[in-house]
């Protein structure tokens, strides 16, 4: 038995007690995502409130997990949903099947379906995780939605129905967690930013936009 090795080991563990801990106090402090994080989907609108989705079903075809179901229908002058000829009569995504690869986003010719940075969607039933248009489409009062490239490092201007469902939690905790950005809200109200070097940068949280 190597006694010196034992003492070295004891010294190591003792030293580790005083190091900075790797734990992130999750529901209270949230880890930053990569800036192109793929989370929950959102169906966007045009500035005039029209749906961007034209019901072309390209996302459904592109989806490797067969998670998307689109049933298109003709627009009529009395019942116009999108600027084109057709619109998505039904648009459903099974979030349990979805692998969040973002190929629907790439396939979409009108930038209608986008992946938001929101990721906390746990629920109790499978049915509740099949998101239909009522959950996916940005409600008109929340704006039009933003494509990923339009929101570098910030909170999306709209919060969408998906986010509105999530807003039942405390907004200044919930929304920040799903930023595309790099900041995390701590329980002290500061933001904590892990840097690649392992250091930390603490600054005041930015004013939230949108939402309740």
């Amino acid at each position, binding site marked *: 038995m190597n006694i010196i090795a034992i003492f070295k*080991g*004891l010294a*190591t563990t003792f030293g*580790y*007690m005083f190091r900075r801990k790797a734990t992130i*106090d999750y529901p209270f402090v949230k880890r930053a995502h990569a800036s192109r994080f793929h989370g929950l989907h959102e169906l966007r609108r045009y500035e005039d409130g029209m749906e961007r989705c034209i019901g072309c079903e390209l996302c459904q075809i592109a989806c490797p997990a067969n998670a998307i179901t689109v049933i298109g229908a003709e627009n009529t002058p009395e019942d116009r949903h999108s600027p084109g000829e057709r619109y998505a009569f039904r648009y459903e995504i099974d979030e349990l099947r979805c692998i969040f690869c973002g190929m629907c986003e790439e396939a979409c010719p009108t930038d209608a379906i986008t992946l938001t940075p929101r990721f906390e969607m746990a629920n109790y039933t499978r049915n509740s995780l099949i998101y239909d248009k009522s959950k996916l489409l940005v409600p008109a009062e929340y704006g039009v939605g933003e494509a990923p490239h339009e929101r570098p490092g910030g909170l999306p201007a709209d919060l969408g129905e998906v986010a509105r469902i999530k807003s039942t939690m405390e907004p200044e905790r919930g929304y920040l967690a799903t930023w595309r950005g790099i900041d995390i809200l701590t329980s002290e109200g500061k933001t904590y930013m892990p840097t690649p070097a392992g250091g930390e940068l603490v600054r005041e949280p930015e004013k939230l936009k949108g939402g309740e």
Partner: protein
Amino acid sequence: MIEALPLWLLVAIKSLVLLIIVITLFAYTMLAERKVLAYMQLRVGPNKVGPWGLLQPAADALKMIFKEDLTPSSADPLIYRLAPFIAVFTALLAYAVIPFSQGEHGPWSIANVNAGILFVFAITSMGVYGISLAGWASGSKYPLLGSVRATAQMISYELAMTMSVIGVILQASTTSLSGIVEAQSRMWFIVPQFLGFLIYIITAVAETNRVPFDLVEAESELVAGFHTEYSGLRFGLFFIAEYINMITVSCLATLLFLGGWSGPGSSGHPLLGLLYFVIKVFAFLFFYIWLRGTLPRLRYDRLMAFGWKVLLPLATLNLLVTAIVVALWY
């Protein structure tokens, strides 16, 4: 006022107070273990229940109480149910004689027995019955293996442990625990009995079945060792017994080698003495946790070889040298 009470009532009150203190101490030793281990592994440990997780033991106790108490159909029902109580009972009984400080009318203990150290060793060696009966009565192979190991390990290490302590008894020329502490008024026995101290510390870890000598539980080999089949409160009792044994051996180490409650300015100040005692015990408890956070488990044959071929000869040598020195110079 205290003298006016009948003796049995006095002892009952003392026992109750001590029981509450020891159980609380057990709960917070467990929490401290989880916290310290977590800190050594760059985690934060339990921190959700109460400030810094201070109410975690209460939550754990509630969980234990409300869990289902299963008895396997192949188990021997009576002994299976009895074993945890044997473990806890023997673990707690040692506190009947352990003194914690020196008051005006004698040491602070439930009973000031003149053969205290013998009593403690007699009682703690009964603790192995709880473990071996639990493993045997579970009627399943892993608990049986665990308890066979426990029996072999505890018997082999108890020899070396007792040998190492006899050195102290020789030097103090008393078996009373408070007498041993008084005998250390000039010099703590850790200095003249350093080898004995080392042997005691190592064997105490083995006696309490703690890492790196936790062959009895050995999660990676034996599922959970002797208490694999136990659940709910009965499992909790084994848990309590293990930690109380840990506190007992820490108390003994403090009394035998670190001068018990003695420290700067402690004579005539029982509370200060108690504080010194508690600090020393906590240092030992921390050492146990520290060991657990550092060392991997020994292989079984090495454990036995270490006990019989290293510790026992060393303890015997220590005893012989002590005996010769005491005979010639004291």
